Structures are given as structure tokens and as C-alpha cells.
């Protein structure tokens, strides 16, 4: 089970901020999210969006462990 965290406008868009989800890879997780909510899935691939796995920014696909923390980060706006 990966812990999935949403920030900024993704929270408003998806209607949740944290969930546990079953996924072997980041690709699988994205697919599951997109199947559930295609608009939200599309937003996750928008310009400037980043993904952190265990608090490190990742590009491309990565395997997820049972305790992975996956965060979807909209463009950072600064303080």
C-alpha cells in the first residue's frame, strides 16, 4: 500500500488529500487514478507538475514499495 498525498489545487480537484492505494509502480498508480477520475488523471500530467516518491523528486516510472509515500505536486508557487 502506497500512501498518496495531494497538494495545492490537486486537493480541490480530486476532493481528497491523502489515501492509501495499492500499486506496484508509479505508472500503475497513475493509471488507477486516471481510471477513477480522468480529469484529475489528466491534470497530473500538466506542465510543471512534479512527483516526489519518499520526498525525492522522480522522473519517469519507479517501483513503489509497500510503505512508499507518493506526493503529486502542482507548480510550486513560493511563499
Amino acid at each position: 500500500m502506497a500512501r498518496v498525498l495531494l497538494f495545492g489545487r490537486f486537493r480541490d480537484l480530486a476532493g481528497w488529500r491523502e489515501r492509501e492505494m495499492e500499486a506496484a509502480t508509479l505508472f500503475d498508480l497513475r493509471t488507477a487514478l486516471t481510471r477513477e477520475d480522468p480529469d484529475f488523471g489528466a491534470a497530473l500530467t500538466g506542465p510543471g507538475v512534479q512527483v516526489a516518491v519518499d520526498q525525492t523528486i522522480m522522473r519517469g516510472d519507479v517501483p513503489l514499495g509497500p510503505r512508499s509515500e507518493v506526493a503529486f505536486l502542482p507548480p510550486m508557487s513560493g511563499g
Partner: protein
Amino acid sequence: MITLTEAPFDPGALLTEFSKGRTETGAIATFTGLARAEQGSTASLELEAYPGFTESEIGKIAAEAQERWSLHDLNILHRVGKIAPGDPIVFVATAAGHRRAAFEACDFLMDYLKSRAPFWKKEHGPEGARWVEPSAQDYADRERWG
């Protein structure tokens, strides 16, 4: 030191602490960013961070500034949560031997914090709430540092 806080803070109290007991520091620059009321168009500001990740990302840039300008010390404090107009949002202090280094490092850190640091900002106004993303000016300011 890099701190996120939900509570209002007094930038002066931070400067008092930061300036104590320095005998080789010739220069301290500070910057305080305040929430503007924009003549009533912004009722309040809400800032979200990713605890742990946000501090560690700011820490990387702070280490870069420390090295690049040979800083003696630095302090960064950033509000999160709901912020009322007129309240301080961010405080940066830099200590160096000479003033050019202190000013430039402070300026550099602020450009980073305002445009690239892991915060998500929501403005609550009379016409509802909206998420704010970086302005073209923020990106341009950042470009100055190569």
C-alpha cells in the same frame, strides 16, 4: 535554521536573536515579506507546505547560498496555514563579513522562496478562493542568478 510555523511571528524578535554576540560579522541583511491587503481584494492568504520535503528543499538552496557568499549564518522562517493581511509571511536573515554578500544572499534566497520553494498559495477574497502560481516577474527574478 529553517523553520515553518503556523503561528504569527515578529520579524524584529528574530533579528534581535540573530544579531546577538557577533564579533566578526560586519553585515546582516534581512527581508520580511508581508501579506498585502490589496485594498481589500485579498481577505486572507493560505499557504500549504509539504512538511519535511519543504524544509529539506529550502535547506539545499540555503546551503548553496551559504557556500556561494561565505555566509557566517542564515535564518529562514516561513508561515504556513491561514495568514491575515499585514501579517509577516516570510523572514530571511543573512550574516556575512561584508554588506554585498549579505545583501546578495538575502535577495537570492527570497527569489527562490517566492518562486520555486515547495509552497502552494491560495488567496481568499470577496469573490472566492483561487490558487496562485508564479508570475512571469518571479521567473525573471530567478533568472538573474544563472
